[in-house]
C-alpha cells in the first residue's frame, strides 16, 4: 500500500518537520490576525462612516480573492515590480495575516454589537461605573463569544497553509511529494501511503483544536 517508504531513512521525521513548518506559519499568522483583528473590529463597531466603508471593502476583497492568487501576488509579484525580495515564509505570513485579520475583525465586530444595550444599562443601574461595566460585564461576555470562533479560524488557517508549497515552502505536503518522487521506482504505491499519513497528521493537528472550540462553545453558551 505504499506505507513502507515512510520507514525508510528519516522520512517520517521529515514529514513531521514539514507539518511543523505549516503549524509555525499558521500560528504566527493567527497571533498577528488576533492582535490586528481586535483593533480593526473595535474600529468597525464604532461606525465611523468613512472608515467603515474602507474596512468593508477590505473584508469583501479578502472574501472574494482566492488566497493562492494573493500568495502569488505577494511572493512573485512584488519581487520584480517593487524590487522587494520577500522570503517565502514571510510572504505566506503576510497573506494569511491579511486574510485572518479581516475574518477576526468581523468576529470582534459581531461580538461587540451582539451585546445588547440593556446589558450596559442593567450594569449601570446597579451602580457600576463605565470601567467596572466593561471589566466585569461586557468584556467577559465578548471573550466567551470570541474564543470558540477564533479557535475555529486557527484550524482553517492550518488547513489553508497547504497552499504555501505553491510558493516553494517545503511543508508537509511538499515533503510528501518529494518522498513519493524519490521512491517512484521501488514503491510505485507510495502516493497512497504518504498522503494517507499526511491526512492523519492534519487530523491530529486540527481535531484537538476543534474539540476544544466545541467544548468552550458548549460551556459558555448563553
Amino acid at each position: 500500500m505504499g506505507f513502507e517508504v515512510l520507514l525508510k531513512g528519516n522520512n517520517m521525521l521529515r514529514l513531521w518537520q514539514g507539518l511543523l513548518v505549516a503549524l509555525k506559519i499558521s500560528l504566527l499568522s493567527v497571533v498577528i490576525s488576533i492582535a490586528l483583528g481586535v483593533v480593526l473590529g473595535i474600529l468597525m463597531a464604532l461606525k465611523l462612516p468613512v472608515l467603515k466603508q474602507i474596512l468593508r471593502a477590505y473584508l469583501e476583497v479578502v472574501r472574494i480573492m482566492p488566497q493562492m492568487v494573493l500568495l502569488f501576488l505577494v511572493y512573485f509579484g512584488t519581487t520584480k515590480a517593487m524590487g522587494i525580495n520577500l522570503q517565502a515564509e514571510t510572504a505566506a505570513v503576510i497573506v494569511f495575516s491579511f486574510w485572518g485579520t479581516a475574518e477576526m475583525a468581523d468576529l470582534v465586530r459581531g461580538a461587540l454589537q451582539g451585546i445588547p444595550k440593556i446589558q450596559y444599562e442593567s450594569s449601570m443601574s446597579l451602580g457600576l461605573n463605565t470601567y467596572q461595566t466593561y471589566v466585569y460585564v461586557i468584556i467577559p461576555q465578548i471573550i466567551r463569544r470570541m474564543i470558540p470562533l477564533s479557535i475555529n479560524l486557527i484550524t482553517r488557517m492550518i488547513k489553508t497553509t497547504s497552499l504555501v508549497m505553491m510558493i516553494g515552502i517545503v511543508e508537509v505536503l511538499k515533503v510528501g511529494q518529494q518522498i513519493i518522487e524519490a521512491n517512484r521506482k521501488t514503491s510505485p504505491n507510495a502516493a497512497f501511503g504518504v498522503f494517507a499519513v499526511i491526512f492523519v497528521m492534519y487530523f491530529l493537528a486540527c481535531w484537538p483544536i476543534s474539540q476544544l472550540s466545541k467544548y468552550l462553545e458548549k460551556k459558555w453558551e448563553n
Partner: protein
Amino acid sequence: MESNEILRVNGISKRYGDISVFEHLDLSVKKGEVVVIVGPSGCGKSTFLRCLNGLEEIQEGEVLLDGERISQNPKELSRTREKIGMVFQSYDLFPHLTILQNLTLAPVKVKKRNKKDVEKEAEELLERVGLLSKKDRYPRELSGGQKQRVAIVRALIMHPEVLLLDEITAALDPEMVKEVLDVVLSLAKEGRTMVIVTHEMQVARAAANRMIFIDGGKIVEEGEPTEFFEHPQTERLRQFLHSFSYEAE
C-alpha cells in the same frame, strides 16, 4: 409630612431633538409609598422611569433623591444608582455569571462589602423568593419568571432607597406572571418605596398607595387606587380602564 419625602421630580421634560416625549412632569414619592404609573403604550411612562435614575438625559427640570439633586455627571450618577434600584422588562441577568455571582457582583465591587457576608445575604434573599436551589445555575437554565425574581433580588441586595420596576411582567408567559407579582406584593407590604410601571391592573390595585395615569406625555389623573379605579374623573382614564375589561355589554 414633607419631611419623609424621598424622591421628588420637578418639572422634567424629555425630548429627542424636536420630538417631545413628555413636558414638565412632577412627582413626589414618600418613604414607604408605592406609586404605580399606568398609561397606553408609548405614553412615555417607561422613559419617565428611566429618567429617574439617569438612564435617559432630561432636557429640563430636576430629580431630587433625599433632597439632593441627581446630577448627570457619570461619576456621581453611579453613586446615585446605588440608592435607586431598577428592574427591567427583559430581566437582563449577566449571562456569564451564576445566579449567586449575579447577585454579589455589585455589592462586592461597588459597595466593597465582604464577599462572604454578601453571599450569605444573597442566599437568604434567594430563599425568600424560593430560588435558593438555583444559586449555582446560570441564567440560561432558569425560566423567565425565575430570572425576573433573581433580577429583583439583584436590585434589592444593593439596599436601594427606591426601587423602580419597569413593566417587569410584560415579557413573561402568563403562568409566570403571578410568581413575580407575589414578590412585588410582599415588598409592597413590607413598606418598600417603589415606583412601578405596569399593565397589570390587578396588581396595581393590590400594591399601589397612589395611582398615576399618564397619556400623551402628561399626568392626566392621579389618586388613591379605589377612587382611581371605581370613579375615574376623566374621560380618557375611563376609556383606558375600559380597554382592560372584557365584560359583555
